[in-house]
């Protein structure tokens, strides 16, 4: 499986944020987008997730499920946690697993274990601390298997131990032939991790 992005062009209002960006991510590979604020990291990830329409170029998941759109084969972790405060951690997770998985065998217990959430499973998400909420959000990745992970600053408000949990999950996902496209300031500490520098100058000059 291979995520191929060619000559991607994205406009936001009157500004061109991404201009002619090309890269590829192959199975078992993690690509980390780095660069200063405003370089377009979030824009690239949101465009791949189908939340922003591209003004030009192609985005393709080669070798993916031909019956599904790309966004339906990807997990999108944005800045917000998409948790309902009045539902428990487990209910939140189960909803997303059922909604996103649409029939696939959900592994809620596994997901709770992966992010050390078992003690919190029956607590409404509204009571959680920021770091715990982030972990509950990330557990979505494990609860429903999807080949492509799109992680936009996944480590926000995570402590060092939690970052290690995330790194383990990412490593396992990659070992299983998954793909990861991430934007992060904090290194995930992965063995195989390519970095792609997006600079504000690059998109402005192009």
């Amino acid at each position, binding site marked *: 499986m291979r995520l191929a992005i060619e000559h991607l062009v994205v406009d936001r209002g*009157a*500004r061109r944020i991404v201009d002619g960006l090309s890269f590829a991510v192959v199975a078992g590979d993690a690509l980390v987008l780095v660069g200063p604020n405003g370089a377009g990291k979030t824009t690239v990830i949101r465009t791949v997730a189908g939340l922003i329409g591209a*003004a030009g170029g192609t985005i393709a998941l080669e070798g993916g499920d031909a019956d599904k759109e790309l966004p339906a084969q990807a997990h999108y972790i944005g800045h917000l946690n998409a948790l309902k405060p009045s539902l428990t951690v487990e209910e939140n997770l189960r909803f997303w697993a059922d909604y996103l998985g649409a029939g696939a065998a959900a592994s809620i217990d596994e997901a709770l274990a992966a992010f050390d959430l078992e003690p919190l499973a029956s607590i409404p998400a509204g009571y959680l601390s920021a770091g715990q909420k982030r972990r509950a959000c990330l557990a979505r990745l494990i609860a429903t298997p999807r080949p492509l992970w799109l992680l936009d600053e996944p480590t926000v408000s995570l402590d060092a131990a939690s970052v290690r949990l995330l790194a383990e999950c990412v490593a396992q996902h990659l070992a299983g032939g998954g793909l990861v496209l991430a934007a992060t300031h904090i290194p995930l500490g992965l063995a195989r991790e390519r970095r792609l520098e997006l600079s504000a100058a690059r998109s*402005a000059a192009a």
Partner: protein
Amino acid sequence: MDLGPHAAFIWASYAIYSVVVAGVIGWLVWDGARLKARLLELEAKGVSRRSRSMSAKPAAKEES
């Protein structure tokens, strides 16, 4: 001109009509003149359309 017993209503109709239509025309002309003046002002400062198209293409609104 004798407009009969209801002249006031006829005149009022035409008066409202004139005021609104004149208002719309006046506003459009004034708005156009104001915009043109500000565009000329900017161009005098040296901001050309080319300098804009280099850094940011304006959402295909201007040239597509």
